[in-house]
Each structure stands twice: as C-alpha cells, then as structure tokens.
C-alpha cells in the first residue's frame, strides 16, 4: 500500500494546484490556508489476476463453487457491467475480460452450450462493437458476437418481464433471457461504492419500469450519500428489488475492484500530487496544457478519450450477492477513503473530461451538473465536505455542446425542460413520462447508440441532493449562457469565483479543494 489519502494545507511553499477543466487542465493558486484533499496512492494490485479469479470462483462466499453449478444442457446467462465504468476506460485486458474468459472456459468444460453474454447497460446507451470488444476481449468477442453477446434492451416489449413488486410496491422487471436461464452470473466491476451488489441486476437487466422505482428526485434527496449505500435510499430500494430477483432466478455474483491508477504514463502528473511532480511530469503538463489550449475541441476530445487507464485488480470475490458485495466494498473503501476534518465554506473542484455517461462523447452541460453536483459532490461518507449553504466552485468550459448520437434527449432536456424549471421534483412531475415514452428516443436507444429518453432526468436527479445543499454554484471558465441556463453563476478566474463566493458565505471563508480524479471518498468527521 502506498501513501494514504491526505489533506494538505496550502502554505507559501505549496505549488499551484492542478484543476481538471474538461478537455484541458489548469494550474491554480489557492489562498493560503486552503485545504487540498488528495486520493490515496494506488493500492498494490493482485499479483496474479487469473489465479485470483479462479480461486474466487472455486471458493465462493456463501455459495457453491461455480463449477458445481454448471451442467450440460443448462441455459446460462452471463451479464456484465457496461462501459460506464471504470473511468477512464481500463487498458486491455479489462478485468471483466479476465473473469468472463474464466467463466466461459469453465462453462465449456462443463458442456454448457447455451451461453449468452449480455452487457447490463440498463438505460445506458448500447455499446458499439469496438466498445464491447474492448471489454470482453477478442477471443470472447469473436466466439459469441453478435448472437450470443449483445447489449441488454430495456425497451424490448417481449424481452423484459415483470416478476413482481417489492414490499414497498416497487416494480421489478428483468430480462426474459435471464429469467428463463438456469443460472445468471453477474460479472461486476465496482469502481466506486455505489456500484455493484443488488444494484447490478436490478438496474443492469431491468427496464424503465423497475429503474423508475428508485431513480427519483425523492430517493436521491434521501440518499446521503448514494456513494455510501447504508445511508442511501436508492440502494435500499435496489436491495429490495434484488432480493426479489434472487428469489426468482438462481444468481451467482462475481465482483471485482480496481485500484485508482487512473492515468497512463503520458498523463502521470494527473495521478500525482503536485509536490511529487518530476521534471518529466512538468513537461507532460506543459505539453498537454499547450495542446489543449490550442487544439480545437474535437481534437482534444479524441486525444483525451483515447486514454486508457492502467488500473490493477485489487480484489475479486464470488458467490452470494450480499457477502460478495460487503467484501468488495471493504476493498474499495480501503482504496478510496480519506479522512477530512470538518466541513468547509467553499469546495473547489475541476470537472474532468469524462463521466460515466459520456465515454467517447462530449460532457454536455447537463452531464457537467451530474458530474460535479452528482458524482463528485456525493463522494463522501457521513456528511458532505461542503457545509450546508456553502459554495461549490467547479472548473469546466461548460459549452452548449451535445453529442447528438449519444444524448439526443439531453438536448431537449436542456432546451425545453431547464428553460421551464430546474427543480428536480417539479421536473420529474411535469416532464419525465413524456421523455420516457417518446417513441423516437425509444427507437434511438434500441437501434442506435443513444441513452434512453429518461436518462437526462436521472442525471439531473443525481444532483438533487447537492442542489438542495449548496448555497451557490460558480463555474470557472464556463460559457456564460450555458452556465446561467443551468442556474449557476459564471466566473472567468478562480480568484473572481472566490470573491463572488464571499457574498454568500462571508469574508475569510474556509476553502477545500477536492483534487480528483483519481477519485476518493471523503470521510468527513
């Protein structure tokens, strides 16, 4: 194990701090006395991943060895997490590939012929051939694609079945293929604590009917935070749904975790604390800064999205879902937790170029909100780093730019819905159904590579808790019209933003900069 995460106080010797800024980077000098929270160093990866996987499958937690569950003539469905994690995407081989290869080989040895591999993309977009190939590897891809390796279709009226309602009345649907299988194996990658567990199957192979049970403004407002499942209403709902699924289908869960080695060598400076930068890191920074300052957005995007992260496998466990997930979360927390003493008046953060919903696409303004006020704000346990009524300062270009293939309904959400109201509860009531049932979005989700029509709503609900919590949001370097449309304030420089923030939080505020990615989970005391 390398160094644990740290909270550094800015003094005269502190070098300028790295802020991600979409498809760019900037160095900012934080006021003296500000705190900077750094992620722990990457955990030491498992030395022999294949061996660890075999061991997990052979010695599962509270379940029988996988080999004993496989038999000739059975119907086997193997679901796996889609490309929304990890971020940036993992350099090959992806850990899912390693697990899938082991599972498939084991199934073949047992004489199982009816095997389907399904990307559990839920209401996320369909992955392209290349994207699937990247996750599962060439061998599996060439063997199974396309008839036995495909994306889940949550809008296939024949392909999804209502299996019941939970004690709270939440509908639970599941892919027909999974229901009709003798065994469903889920291959997960838990990147942050909200991933995995019962949520995998309940959402991954669910449909709008089941996902809408917990992807609501109210649930998200009651998840403090959804990055800490015990305090997350969203996860409690998923657990209820998952238990119903476990009662209906024989499931076997395989979960993996990776360390936070998020950037390749060329961008190693992003991984490191500024005090640790070597001359080579400084040169890399200058080169990337120069490139991103000068290159047109399309070129920058292509360069950034081609980055692959050299994550290392830190754990793999298999068996019964709860036992498996508890173990996974232990490892994930060990990698991510950073103790932070007390809350702060102002939190600053740089929003990177990629979030879970824009792999190979633009981080559009709605996703900027989702990323900053959704994911990054919620990376806490206990209470947010930002105090109630404090000011969140995010750095991002926040341009009015959308990927029309991946995010068609986001464009309408931005133009139509946000022009009317930004209140998540109001938005849900007035607009969600219309988007969810729009036949064109449905078709683009099913036949193209578009996120489901309802997806921008979820992106916005994701930020509901933060929107309620913060006193103000200021976007540094953002496009003024777009930032205002989102309901936020715009500042040209961090200095200006800090001065503006004082109008809300008063003079001499406490400031904490969340230096991520690499991601961490703030354990706020």
């Amino acid at each position, binding site marked *: 194990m390398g160094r644990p995460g740290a909270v550094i106080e800015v003094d005269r010797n502190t070098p300028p701090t790295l802020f991600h800024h979409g498809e760019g980077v900037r160095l900012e000098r934080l006021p003296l006395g500000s705190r900077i929270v750094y992620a722990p160093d990457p955990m030491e990866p498992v030395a022999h991943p294949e061996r660890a996987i075999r061991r997990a499958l052979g010695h599962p937690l509270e379940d029988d060895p996988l080999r004993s569950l496989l038999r000739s003539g059975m119907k086997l469905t193997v679901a796996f997490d889609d490309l929304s994690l990890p971020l940036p995407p993992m350099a090959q081989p992806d850990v899912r590939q390693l697990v899938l290869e082991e599972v498939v080989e084991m199934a073949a040895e047992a004489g199982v012929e009816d095997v389907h591999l399904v990307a559990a993309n839920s209401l996320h977009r369909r992955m392209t051939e290349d994207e699937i190939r990247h996750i599962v590897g060439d061998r599996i891809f060439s063997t199974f694609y396309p008839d036995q390796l495909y994306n889940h279709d949550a809008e296939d009226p024949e392909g999804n079945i209502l299996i019941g309602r939970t004690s709270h009345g939440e509908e639970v649907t599941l892919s027909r293929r999974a229901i009709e299988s003798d065994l469903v194996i889920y291959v997960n990658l838990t990147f942050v604590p909200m991933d995995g567990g019962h949520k995998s199957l309940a959402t991954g192979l669910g449909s709008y009917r089941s996902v809408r049970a917990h992807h609501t403004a109210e649930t998200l407002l009651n998840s403090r935070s959804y990055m800490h499942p015990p305090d997350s209403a969203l996860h409690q709902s998923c657990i209820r749904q998952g238990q119903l699924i476990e009662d209906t289908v024989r499931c076997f869960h395989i979960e993996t975790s990776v360390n936070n080695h998020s950037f390749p060598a060329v961008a190693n400076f992003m991984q490191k604390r500024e005090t640790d930068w070597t001359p080579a890191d400084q040169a890399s920074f200058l080169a990337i800064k120069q490139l991103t300052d000068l290159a047109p957005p399309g070129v920058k995007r292509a360069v950034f999205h081609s980055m692959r992260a050299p994550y290392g496998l830190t754990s793999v466990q298999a068996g019964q879902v709860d036992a498996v997930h508890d173990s996974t979360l232990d490892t994930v927390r060990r990698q991510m937790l950073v103790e932070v003493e007390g809350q702060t008046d102002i939190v600053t953060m740089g929003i990177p170029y990629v979030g879970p919903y824009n792999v190979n696409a633009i981080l559009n303004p709605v996703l900027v909100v989702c990323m900053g006020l959704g994911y990054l704000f919620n990376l806490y346990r206990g209470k947010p780093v930002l105090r109630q009524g404090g000011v969140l300062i995010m750095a991002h270009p926040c341009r009015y730019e959308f990927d029309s293939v991946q995010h068609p309904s986001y*464009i*309408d959400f931005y*133009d*139509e819905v946000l022009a009317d109201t930004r209140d998540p509860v109001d938005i849900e009531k007035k607009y969600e159904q*219309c988007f969810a049932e*729009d*036949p*064109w979005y449905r*078709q683009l989700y099913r036949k193209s590579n578009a996120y489901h029509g309802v997806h921008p709503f979820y992106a916005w609900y994701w930020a509901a808790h933060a929107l309620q919590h913060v006193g103000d949001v200021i976007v540094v370097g953002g496009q003024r019209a777009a930032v205002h449309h989102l309901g936020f304030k715009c500042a040209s420089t961090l200095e200006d933003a800090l001065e503006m923030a004082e109008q809300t939080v008063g003079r001499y505020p406490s400031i904490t900069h969340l230096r991520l990615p690499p991601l961490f989970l703030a354990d706020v005391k």
Partner: protein
Amino acid sequence: MLALQYHRSIPAYALVRATGGHPSVATSDLSMLDLGDVPEPRPPGPGWMRVRPSVSGICGSDTAAITGHASLYLDPLTSYPFVPGHEIVGQLDDGTRVVVEPALGCRVRGLTPPCRHCAEGRIGLCENVTEGAVAVGLQTGYCASTGGGWGEVLVAHQSQLHAVPDRLPDEAAVLLEPFACCVHAALRGGASQGDVVVVQGAGTIGLLTVAAVRLFTPPRRLVVVAKYPFQREQAKRLGGDLIVGPDEVFQRVRFATQARRLDGLDRPLLLGGADVTFECTGSARGLNDAVRFTRSGGRLVVVGMPGEEKVDWGPIWQRELNVTGAYAYGTEMTGERTFDLAIAAAPDLALDNLTGPLFRLGDYRDAITYALQAGRLNAVKVAFDLRDLRA
C-alpha cells in the same frame, strides 16, 4: 407631389440583380427607384377619394421588388411606373383616419358582374386585375393609376377604406394591412386545438401570423422560428409557446410533436411533425425546412412572399402535403371581412411596439437599407413617416 416611383427598366433591373440587390445599388440613381415630383393621381371614377398617407410601411414585397428579388410572375400583373407602398394609414380630405385595403378587385374597378372570386368576397384572387377603370395591378402600391403609400397623395375607392379606431395610433394602424393578411392565413391554415403549429420566420408577417393564429385558431402548441432576440421577445409576447432558432427547428419541432428524426445528406426530416406550418420567410431554406418538418398530410401555408426559390418537391409529393398560398384578404368563410377582424383585434396587441424606426421620404435610401436588415437591427416594421408633408 413628392413620391418615390418604381420604373420598369431592364438595364436597371439587370444592374441591381448583378449586385445581388445590394442596397447601395438598389436605391441608387441607376436603380428602378426614383424620388421626385410626380403628378398627383386622379380619381378614376365615382366613389374614389384622395388619401394623404400618414405612415406607410416598407413591406418585404417592396424590398424584394427594389432589390430585384421579386417573382417575375408578378411583372405582367403590375403597371408601371407605380408609387410603392400598400401598408397605409392616412387621412381623407375631411380628416378621417383610414387604412387602405389595397386589393384592386372587381368592385374597385367598377366591373359588374364581378368575377367568381370577387363574388365570393375573395378579392385577392380577382381575375379582372387587368380590366376596368384603373390600370393593371393586384394592389394599390403596384398600380400606375392609384398612387401608393410612398407618395404625398393616393386615390382609393371607398370600398377600400376602413376607419381607424381612435385608440389605435398610426404606428399600430400601419400594420393592419399585413395583419389582415395574417388573419387570412391563419384562417386558411385552419389549425385545431389539438394541433402543433409552426410559424417559420418572425419578421412582420411571421409575428403577425403568430398573433393571428393565437387569436383565431389557437392550437395545442404554437412554435415560432425566430432568429433575432427582439423577434423572439415579440413572438413570445404575441402568443408563441415555444420560440426556437432556425438551426434548432428540427430538434424542437421533433420534440413538440414526438416525431422521429432522420438526418439526411443535406438537411434532416421528421417522420411525423407539425400539423400546420406557416412559412413566413419566403426563402428557399424556410420552404425546404418546412416541407420536411410538416407531417404527412399536414398543411403548409405559404404566407411570406416567395420568389423563384429552389424547393425540393420530393417531400411535398411523398408526404402528400397540402401546400397552400395565403394572399391578401377579403371576406372570410364566416362572412366577415378580414380587415374588420383585424381592426377589431388589433387594439389589444400593442402593434405599435413592432413599428419603427420611421424615416422621412427623403431618407428613403437609409430607410430601405434599414428595412433590409431589420431583424438584425432589432426592428420589425420600418416605415415612412409622411405626416410632415401634410403640414
């Protein structure tokens, strides 16, 4: 009397066309337009009266003629030289404030029996525009006999005159003529309460069509395509539900109609789309967009005056669109005169907000240049103020 006159001159027309209708050429001494002392028009028969224009608008059809972009179809339907200006509020010799309904139909021409269209009250479609007591011309402002609004005096038949309510200032009354056109267009569009209607364009005709549709055939959703901030503001004020930019029209109409969008090589198309579209730009782009976002079997009402535009007829054919023109006014199906409907509705619309700046006749070059860029300059109806000539 002082008037601007439009002469039919092939060399001048060729020169103006060659420069793409550049204002500096289209209003120069070498153009078709000429400011000067011209003989006052004489009443061609009984029932004709002198009108002294107070405010006279510059219409898109006027600028099209001046810049050489008007359809040549109109040439044989016009007599030269004529004094332009058909959006007119003025005074009779006895001081009565009037607006002129410029269509020159059978009654005005003293023809009995009237042609079949005039008999139905559809004077804009008169088939006798070459006959009778006045020279060839569809309207006052395109006829050599009557004079027009861009001169000190014109003559009009009493059936063409409508008294202006006191609470309607000249700046609002000058818009009654285009407003009547738009009321007629709205009624021809015949949108119903469940429809999604698109008004394409937000110049004078577009904005007044928005108002007319909102008042006379209110739909479920009224989408307005507006380019400039002032137009967007006015479109909202006059009843548009959703104001969108020209570049986002397919996206927003798709959403409003829950249609499907396909992206073609040149421009997108919607499967589904608007029930009724009012095309108020008269441009090739506007028309080509409209035929692709109006739903199959839907209605496309061409309100803005188009020239010889290149339009892809494929969508019209395949979508079985009902494409219809909406020209002028007359008596509507309800038996009411379009002008009466417009005059009754206008006082509540604060139409004077749309008028300005006003120019003196002597500044016609500036006025026309301004009118050609009205949208960009946050103007809607640029007009001549002739009240000082009366004094």
